[in-house]
């Protein structure tokens, strides 16, 4: 496959009445954006705001983050979801790099998911560095939670495609080319390089806990091999809402950090032979089946090494350990990425290390680490959710109005695909 | 509890049905037992046979206390 990413670097965003990019300034057609989202008659109202890096703005509760893009060919959207199924991963895509659609929509009252654009909070989320077009979606009354989630999910995808139209004729700052041939071709080219696979675990457990591949609910598949570029090209979307710190947003699927960094090594130190989904189910029998099958698939494909990334905290920890054990038992070397819970003061013993096989683990942070969020000048979203943030324990609101929150609540803070910079060090 | 007691230099036998747990709690002398609700018994046996079974398990455990070990060791029947 050959994927060309034409990058248009965005340095500022303004609201206006036309979609365009001039000198790195993205103008968004607000009425057009609203209309694009309101094609769904289950959307009652849409509000659009901008949040820029450094502004004292808090966005909460974030549902999803999506990168606005444009494709010249027929599949300008998310195949299998907002457009007809078509294979992705080939061709050219124009990307508004540095801009992001951030959707707000509270399906349940306890939803968190905060992005602070400034201060301490900003350091812990990757989305304080993007120019965020914040789309607040109110659905019509009377929807059940499932319908509500679908409405907000699709609205975000449509909004990103609409804003992406600005990339159609924009001047391209840089083009990145990604190319990987068939496994036979690459192996012929690099016969001496170790074969490496990337196993991506995804939450697949029900409402607000789902992931979709070409629109297919991952609950319904057995682990499957796919091309890394398909994910980089809109084939994977997130339906996760309540694992703010360690869910993979759609934006992070479009820009999967592990895929990028493995590709960087392709042909140099490794032969990167692809990605595998391993859905995280709720039943133990389902977990055993998927983890076994996942290890078998890696073995069958001849992998020498595998990176396994987790999504979520709690029951997926069991999958991670099971996959690791099974791979190591087959003689395949693993490196794992997971977050941990070592308590407020970092003195609780996190659990992943109870598997003797888990010898190489990257910790993407302690979900219970407490950080201070200063009072915001402006809150985009739902004040109630801001209160939920503040209600987690006694004494978490200071006199000056600043909040103490756990990283739990911060979007992408402990990304287990290694998208951010948090780690844990022993003292 | 096993480790802490052994740390006083007193040999201790863990008599348990799930021996993987015995190992994870750090027992050095382990005697596998019958079943969780009746580790040292078996209600399906006639009383006399059940007692013999129990006596043999206890005897095995006591003998384990008098046996030198270097590492976690299971004393099977």
């Amino acid at each position, binding site marked *: 496959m050959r994927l060309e990413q034409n990058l248009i670097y965005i340095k500022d965003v303004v609201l206006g009445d036309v979609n365009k990019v001039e000198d790195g300034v993205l103008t968004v057609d607000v009425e057009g954006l609203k209309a694009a989202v309101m094609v769904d008659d289950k959307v009652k109202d849409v509000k659009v705001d901008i949040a820029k890096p450094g502004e004292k703005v808090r966005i909460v509760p974030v549902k999803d983050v999506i990168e606005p893009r444009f494709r010249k060919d027929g599949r300008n959207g998310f195949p299998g979801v907002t457009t007809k199924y078509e294979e992705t991963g080939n061709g050219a895509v124009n990307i508004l790099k540095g801009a992001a659609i951030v959707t707000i929509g509270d399906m349940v009252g306890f939803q968190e998911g905060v992005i602070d654009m400034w201060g301490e909070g900003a350091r812990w989320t990757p989305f304080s560095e993007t120019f965020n077009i914040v789309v607040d979606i109110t659905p019509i009354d009377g929807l059940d939670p499932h319908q509500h989630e679908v409405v907000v999910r699709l609205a975000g995808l449509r909004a990103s495609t609409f804003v992406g139209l600005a990339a159609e004729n924009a001047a391209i700052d840089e083009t990145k080319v990604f190319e990987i041939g068939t496994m036979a071709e690459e192996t012929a080219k690099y016969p001496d390089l170790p074969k*490496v696979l990337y196993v991506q675990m995804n939450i697949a457990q029900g409402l607000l806990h789902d992931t979709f591949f070409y629109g297919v609910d991952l609950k319904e598949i057995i682990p499957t091999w796919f091309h890394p570029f398909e994910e980089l090209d809109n084939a994977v979307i997130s339906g996760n809402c309540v694992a703010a710190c360690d869910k993979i947003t759609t934006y992070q699927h479009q820009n999967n950090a592990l895929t990028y960094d493995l590709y*960087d090594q392709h042909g140099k130190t490794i032969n990167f032979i692809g990605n595998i989904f391993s859905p995280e189910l709720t039943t133990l029998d389902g977990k055993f089946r998927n983890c076994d099958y996942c290890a078998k698939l890696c073995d069958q494909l001849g992998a020498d090494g595998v990176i396994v990334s987790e999504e979520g905290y709690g029951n997926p920890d069991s999958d991670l350990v099971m996959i690791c054990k099974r791979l190591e038992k087959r003689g395949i070397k693993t490196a794992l990425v997971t977050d941990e819970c070592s308590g407020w003061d*970092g003195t609780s013993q996190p659990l992943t290390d109870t598997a003797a096989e888990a010898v190489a683990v990257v910790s993407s942070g*302690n979900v219970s680490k407490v950080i201070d969020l200063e009072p915001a000048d402006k809150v985009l979203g739902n004040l109630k959710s801001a209160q939920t943030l503040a209600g987690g324990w006694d004494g978490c609101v200071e006199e000056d109005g600043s909040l103490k929150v756990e990283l739990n609540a911060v979007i992408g803070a402990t990304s287990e695909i290694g998208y951010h910079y948090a780690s844990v060090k022993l003292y | *509890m096993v*480790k802490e007691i052994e740390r006083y230099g007193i*040999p201790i036998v863990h008599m348990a049905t799930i021996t993987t747990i015995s190992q994870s709690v750090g027992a050095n002398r382990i005697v596998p037992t019958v079943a969780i609700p009746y580790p040292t018994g078996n209600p399906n046996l006639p009383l006399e046979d059940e007692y013999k079974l129990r006596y043999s398990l206890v005897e095995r455990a006591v003998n384990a206390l*008098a046996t030198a070990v270097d590492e976690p060791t299971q004393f099977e029947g």
Partner: protein
Amino acid sequence: MAKKVLFYLNQFFGGIGGEDKADFEPEFRAELVGPAEAIAKNFGDDLEAVGVIICGDNFFGQKEDEARAFIAQVIDEQQPDIFVAGPAFNAGRYGFACAGACQVANEAGVTCVSGMYEENPGLEHCQSFAWVAQTANAAAQMRKALPLMANLVKKLAAGEEVTPDDDKYFAQGRRECILVEERGSVRAVNMLLARLNDEEFTTELPMPSFDVVEPAAPILDLSKATIALATSGGIVPNGNPDRLQSASAQQWNKYDISSYDQLKGDFYTVHGGFDPVYCNETADRVLPLDALRDMEKAGKIGKVYDFFYATTGTGTAVANARKFGEEIGKELKEAGVDGVLLTST
């Protein structure tokens, strides 16, 4: 303003004398001696040594409350920022005293530095809060130990970061969440590459150094041995007089069985985790007193210990298990018990 440093030494390193002076009552002296003097020698303007507490190791061991009260009083008077105890190398009594002194200082909010050998029994009593430099096991290595401790004092006083690897101290076990230079994905790729190339790498979630206990020596003569019974199966006298909880107990109990030949009829289980019917017919099915008593009568063992110990729970998830074990083990040791049978359900 300079940070104040207070030292703690035993009678030997404090220059009072050897074993014959081990009862030496604690004293505070403004003038430094021995290792304290050596560490303070290189202090810059930002550090000020306020003096040294010298205390006999036996005094600390036998009159610990008095020793602690004295140390607390000196700390209150001198208001140090940093408390430096030892180095104690592998000296057990000195290690305990250093750990105890550090506890007092730590409770007063003072930063504690010490130095010990990894097997010093005092280490586990202060490792979690004090910065304990890794020293050799004998005082002959004093010259290597002192710079490590001095380095810790300087860095901690200046608020600089110290790490177990760079600064050679025993990790306190605190896992601090920080932001680092490389994002997680790069670190993961590098870690895998290192593994594939058989190069060294450092995992970010290390395996706990499994706390294994050396197997205790076997009983040499069973016929003279006192054997105790214990269980996590929740066995109690009928009526559960001490109200042992049915799961994840917060307590342990002991019951006198010296006049019983079997548990049947008088004991039952309160454990909520298994079907109690079989045990309640005959509690010996969970705690085999009848068989052990018969062995005693047959002279196979010397004696069944007069009490059995009971709690509920299965170990790993019971945070209290460790505490229970320590308490029960202490009693058993003091009672001269030679071996224990612990049954779990």
